[in-house]
């Protein structure tokens, strides 16, 4: 857990050392949930943005964004 958080937040993130194992577990869970929410929101927003684009441009911009 500590190693995972250090990888995400930076090995020099001293705050990881200041939290108990239980608190680290909650930080880990909050970060995992935030990453999932952000990925899902970004995918949904990108799809909706493509839908809003004029049809002739849609395929080209879909390639750029990676959809």
């Amino acid at each position, binding site marked *: 857990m500590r190693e995972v958080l250090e990888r995400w937040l930076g090995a020099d993130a*001293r705050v990881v050392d200041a*939290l108990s194992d239980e608190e680290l577990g909650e930080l880990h869970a909050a970060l995992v*949930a935030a*990453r999932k929410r952000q990925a899902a929101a*970004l995918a949904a*927003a990108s799809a909706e943005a493509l839908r809003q*684009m004029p049809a002739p441009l849609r395929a080209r911009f879909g390639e750029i964004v990676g959809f």
Partner: protein
Amino acid sequence: MGRDLATQAELVKLARALDTTPDEVSFAGSLDHRDIRRLRERVVDALYEEHRATFGRIAMITRLLPTPLNVRITLRAFPPLLAARIAGEMAPDRAAELVNRMPIEYLADGCLHLEPRRAAPLISHIHPDRVVAVVQELVARGEYVTIGHLLDAATERIVRDVAAVISDEALLRIGCYAESDTQLTTAVAALPPERLRGIVASAVGGPPELRSAGLALIARLADDELRARLAEYAAESDDEALTRLLHTAIDDGAVPELLTLFAALGEHTQRRVLTLPALTDPDVRTQLTKAVTAHPLESNVTFMP
């Protein structure tokens, strides 16, 4: 800022960075507010870096589309959190073009997720009237934590324009949540003297939370001359108001801030303050003695009469 206020504000900002509620980040409540801030900055960077390439590609597309179409797509497709992160990847003048055409309410929502480190170049390109309108919207929502957070990104012009249209109470609450003492000092210094006198009077004559906010604001100023000037304004109050300020400092754990304010006064004013009858109260003297022991004054004037 008092430790509790600072910790509460940082927990709110950490929760927003994680797109969750303050209850969900209570695990960080045991940390010092500076450590919570460092944690939040790492969290923001981690979440930002994870999709930075996508944010960059979306920002690139906005360069190829006309502004009205960009605005329409942004409003229909992107929640404010994502829009704020994508804005960080756009050229500031291009992002400002979009911002200048978006509804104030959407921009205010986006401010909750802006990081001053990335937002400063963008904010400096936005039309000042729109910045003021967004701040007014945030004040109407009671979002003092957010405005204080973004104070680091504000220019002196913005500070002056905003100060001209919002209340003394709002300014005090914003100052309470400012992150940087240096930027807070710059912002306060940008206000005209008569406004500063009015703000101090509103704090001293206001309810306890405003008195606390005023003490915190004056104590945090990084400019000795400015701190002394505001402290003198506060000391112009009558004995009744100064006694209320004294009791608020004791009740809210803001005696160190009160002592900083007292130390900034000129000797003549210090002598007048020391004649306050409340300072002969044994309970008050005990509280002050404890605080003076824990936080010795830099000046050689004793606080006790």
